[in-house]
């Protein structure tokens, strides 16, 4: 079984361009992959942007200290920084199996996520989190929890992503 910092490194390596723009995006990607059977072993709480695992954040930092990932912060609106993770060694060997999923399955799922904005991933992950926590009408609750972000268009996109991921 791979350690969590290896799993996070493989996910970054298999994502478009060998990088992930945004810590929030990385969190939601690992969460959604976990829902698809990744079995990373992470536990999630509900935070500002939906499901969040401190273990993923620590693992990404471990991967950085181990020289597996590069990390830099870029200025966003009002100079508020957002993080970018990039694979440190482009030739990094990604095994055929990552956690409970085959490598090609992970690649396929990441490919599905790439066309979605960080806010749409946040909405999809929040919907999925609420559904797995036995909330009956998760979509209605997401609209109430995130009224500014959950526009009908974004919510439709988020629901489509979940369907495409097989969730």
């Amino acid at each position, binding site marked *: 079984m791979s*350690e969590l*910092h290896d799993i996070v490194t493989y996910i970054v390596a298999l994502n478009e361009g060998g990088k992930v*723009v*945004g*810590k*929030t995006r990385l*969190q939601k990607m690992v969460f959604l992959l976990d829902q698809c059977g990744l079995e990373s072993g992470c*536990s999630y*709480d*509900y*935070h*500002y*942007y939906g499901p*969040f695992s*401190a273990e*993923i*954040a*620590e693992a990404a*930092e*471990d991967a950085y*200290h*181990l*020289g597996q990932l590069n990390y830099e912060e870029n*200025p*966003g*609106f*009002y*100079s*508020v*920084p*957002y*993080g970018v993770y990039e694979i440190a060694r482009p030739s990094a060997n990604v095994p055929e199996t990552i956690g409970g999923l085959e490598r090609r399955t992970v690649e396929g799922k990441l490919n599905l996520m790439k066309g979605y*904005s*960080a*806010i*749409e991933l946040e909405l999809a992950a929040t919907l999925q989190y609420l559904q797995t926590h036995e909330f009956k009408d998760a979509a209605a609750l997401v609209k*109430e*929890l*995130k*009224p*500014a*972000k959950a526009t009908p268009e*974004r919510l439709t996109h988020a629901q489509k992503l979940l369907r495409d991921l097989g969730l």
Partner: protein
Amino acid sequence: MKGQKQENLRIRDPIHDLITFDLADSLDGLAWELINSREFQRLRRVKQLGFSDFVFPGATHTRFSHCLGAFSIARKLLKIIEKKQGATFDRSKAFVAGIAALLHDLGHGPFSHVFEGIQKELGRGRKHEEWTREMIEGDTEVHSILEGNNSGLANKVGLLLGRKDPADIYDALVSSQFDADRLDYLQRDRYMTGTNTGAFDYAWLLDCLEIGKINVGQEGGDFVEVDGLYLNHKGLAAAEGYLLARFHLYSQVYLHKTTRAAELMLASLLSRMIALVKEGHAEATGLHAGHPLLRFFEGDKSSLGSYLDLDDFQIWSAIAEMAAATDAQTRNLAIGLHDRKLHKCINIGEMARRAGGDSLVHFKRLLKENSEKLGANVLKDEVSLTAYGTHDYEDTGALQKVLIGLPDGSGKIEDIVSRSEIVGAIKRQRIFRVYFSDAAERESIEELWKEVIK
């Protein structure tokens, strides 16, 4: 209010002096009714800082006084918002936000974060926010009072508290860098612990608050725009003081090594108690049958009723009973907590920072591999500290930052980190401590570290 003379009621508070309630005012009147509910009164029996009085004997203040303080600040913030918004001020939303500020900590249990951790371990991870919502929307006195005031009010207050991600300026009152919760606890915890660091210019800070449209999202990407709070350029020094105050309280008080030792020991004690009960050895815990703590962990899901029965007094009574347990691990932990004979620690995080490279990752791996050999008394504490508190793992968007207006009259605002060299200089610290109960355990931990740096 039924049967009560319409008058001003007063509460004397060490931070806000007089907190008055004008019973003829709809917000104050409802707040007073809620304060007198069974669930709110329970907060008198839940200390705000858990074990911190082991280090700071004065820190025995409760969630009750903190919630009253947060309500007092919320009213001040609402006045500021009303003044700035003029005719567009939404009284109905302001009313909901004021009540939400009063009730924001209603669901806190005794030694809250320890309890949340244990519930998570059991796979029934419910945080205090979820209990708060259940108390507001479930079969409780608070719920009856809210619904008696206005049908649907309980749901509105519950939703606002569950939202976390602020959607408008009224949400900012309970979830933002300048929310009523933070503005109260930073002052109250400093005062009650007696620490002389962590002061900030509260009145000046409030006077510099402005409302503006804040973009949430990344440059060039998908984003939304919501009303949020920021400070005008005159608030820069006060904002620096505010963030430094928080940073110092976290490093000096909330994450104090001795307080954390007690928290880890209680978590370990509760884990052991649950394991014994599961194995059918409840009698070995030393707890009498039917103790509220046993009732809470019974079955697959804890009920609201059993949660409401828990408070600091119940935990201390359980610790006293467990100090006579037949199970040695339970007994030793309970005696340690009861008599303040706490585990000591080695600050591996600091040693790793000096050693540099990937030494911490290697140590963590060794610790994990040797966990069985080291035994149940060796406990780990891992947390990251930043200028904004203990969580900076996600890209906290603009709404979770302290934003400052530029002095050039352009109307532009920026994250304080890019405007203040002092705040910008606060780097993320990774705290990693390993606790032990005797010299042999200490030696084993030191051996592991030697292996890392050899």
